[in-house]
């Protein structure tokens, strides 16, 4: 079943009622019992709502006439974000939440890279994917070595925990993070939905790491969060640069509402927890109402038909499943790729600016390398395994006197 974006009206905005605090901050999901993909959907939808709010604030600043409408839509969206984000339970610690965030990045981006119709943009997605894949591994090493936590208890065996493109080489000069944008007239609607979804996901990951990074006491953790947060900012730059800069602000609003509809619909289609499914259904109906508001504003102000921008029907839903084989193939084929300008090149072709930047940030050593030195994932974590695995390096990361 798919949705007809031009005919489905959802709940009209003026009939969308606020929820009480106890309904908003209600019963969370279970860290132990909920499926990892239920958690992943919760995390992504929080990011989508955060992006939706942020972009509507930016839209409102130069548009006085639209401010009342945008304020009314934002009020409901802020409630949606609260309803969704408060589904995360208190026993999901910041490091465990981080593991879950990276799992979202891996499985979502893998799906997007697989279905993206534009070959260059699919390459961009695979490029970003291998970097988030590496973050999952680095944070898993931190979880194990600093907290005695097995990241796989969060990942539930859906996602491999192993190096991707090493984080130490992900640091690039800003110009080497900018990609070629899609052409708004020729791009497949899915290309637009994919790019905006990833901008939302990566922005929230960046913001989350920036908020919680300083709360860690462990010096390696503090530095690792600083390091990986900087890559997430690079990723926001990358995915944002995929969007056509000539799209008008109202056109972008329309697309963002479509992104929300598409994502809630994808959640609804695959949710296994009936209580959470009801939340997705409620939010989808509300978003369809918001889409109508955006269409009306777009058609009134720009005097264009919203059918020029919106796909009539939605693409197949985001596949919330393990992408293990695709990931293993991609790691094996493309971990060695680097970026120069908007192109993907070999390691020796990197720009002088990127080399200089990387040398500066890694001048005092690399937290992402230090945390994972000699570490591979094994069931139950490092401590559950027999002692040394690599020559000279103990599994706890201390060196026995031999250089690795």
């Amino acid at each position, binding site marked *: 079943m798919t949705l007809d974006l031009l005919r489905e009206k959802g709940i009209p905005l003026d009939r969308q009622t606020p929820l009480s605090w106890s309904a908003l901050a209600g019963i969370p999901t279970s*860290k*132990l019992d909920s499926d990892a993909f239920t958690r992943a959907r919760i995390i992504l939808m929080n990011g989508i709502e955060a992006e939706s709010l942020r972009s509507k604030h930016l839209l409102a600043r130069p548009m006085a006439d639209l401010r009342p409408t945008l304020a009314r839509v934002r009020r409901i969206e802020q409630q949606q974000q609260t309803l969704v984000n408060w589904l995360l339970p208190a*026993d999901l610690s910041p490091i465990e939440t981080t593991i879950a965030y990276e799992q979202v990045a891996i499985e979502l981006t893998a799906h997007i890279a697989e279905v993206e119709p534009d070959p260059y943009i699919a390459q961009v997605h695979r490029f970003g994917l291998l970097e988030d894949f590496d973050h999952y591994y680095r944070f898993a090493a931190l979880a194990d070595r*600093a907290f*005695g*936590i097995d990241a796989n*208890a969060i990942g539930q065996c859906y996602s491999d925990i192993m190096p991707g493109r090493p984080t130490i080489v992900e640091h690039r000069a800003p110009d080497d993070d900018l990609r070629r944008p899609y052409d708004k007239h020729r791009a497949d609607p899915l290309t637009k939905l994919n790019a905006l979804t990833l901008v939302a996901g990566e922005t929230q990951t960046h913001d989350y790491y920036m908020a919680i990074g300083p709360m860690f006491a*462990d010096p390696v953790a503090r530095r690792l969060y600083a390091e990986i947060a900087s890559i997430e900012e690079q990723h926001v730059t990358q995915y944002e640069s995929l969007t056509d800069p000539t799209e008008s602000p109202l056109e972008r609003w329309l697309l963002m509402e479509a992104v929300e509809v598409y994502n809630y619909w994808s959640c609804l289609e695959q949710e296994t927890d009936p209580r959470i499914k009801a939340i997705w259904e409620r939010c989808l109906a509300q978003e369809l109402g918001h889409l109508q508001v955006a269409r009306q504003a777009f058609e009134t102000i720009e005097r264009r038909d919203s059918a020029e921008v919106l796909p009539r029907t939605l693409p197949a839903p985001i596949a919330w499943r393990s992408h293990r084989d695709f990931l293993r193939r991609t790691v094996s084929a493309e971990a060695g790729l680097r970026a120069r300008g908007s192109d993907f090149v070999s390691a020796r072709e990197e720009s002088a600016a990127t080399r200089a930047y990387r040398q500066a940030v890694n001048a005092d050593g690399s937290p992402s390398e230090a945390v994972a030195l000699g570490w591979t994932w094994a069931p139950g974590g490092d401590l*559950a395994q027999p002692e040394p695995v690599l020559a000279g390096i103990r599994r*706890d990361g201390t060196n026995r006197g031999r250089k690795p």
Partner: protein
Amino acid sequence: MKSTRRPTDANRTGMDASDHADGMRSLTAIAEPSDLAREDLATLRQRAIKDAPATGSPPPAPDAARQVVLDLLSARLAYERAGTRLYDAVIAKATAGQRFAGGPTSADLTLIRTQEAEHRALLQEAILELAGDPTLVSPGASLEMVASLGLLQAVQDARTDLGECLTPLLIAELADRAAWASLIETVDAAGFDELADRLRDAVEHEEEHLMKVQGWLRAYRVWRLEGNGRRPSASRGPAVRQVTTKATAVVRGQKRKAVVRRKR
């Protein structure tokens, strides 16, 4: 109100340190409490507690006794994993050269760490013996993980020294000893006598750990009373390399003259 410059490494949390303390004290005479609530904090909590489900499901087991034991073993396993990492963090302080008269050496701490890791292995074997899954996080384990986070946070902070780390270690060891004793009682009561016997070795270690930590803590307090151990606070730490621009030179008093001179 006149502002007095205080040294940047003076503690500012107490009211006696503030020039604004009188203004703050005068507030208590005029401020009214909030009074619009239909229910108080305790009632709100009660309502939430009544509605709340369990944090998660217990480990699968053929009977209640085995399920309780598996949950407790999983809980102990989680705690020993965190405990091992707790000692890793304290060992790092000792390895970094921190010491005091009567305090632990890196080797002393490493011995305890090794024993905590052995206990973890013992618990893993016990879970497997009862046909459980040692990678499963039981509700009891999740609880231990949450409870131990503060202890880890306290010792992992690069600013807390070896002696200060003994306070969280004491909390950890007191809890560990009591929890092992309780675990063995429960395993015994559930009818797994042989397993209970094997687990008893760990309790002896935990007793030793507690005695050692208490002894080191005592020595640390004496050492501090003798005037040792004062270290500079954050404001004395290394700064980012200073960059002075024309604008900031004006703000920085000592540079103003140089700028003025150049203008002339």
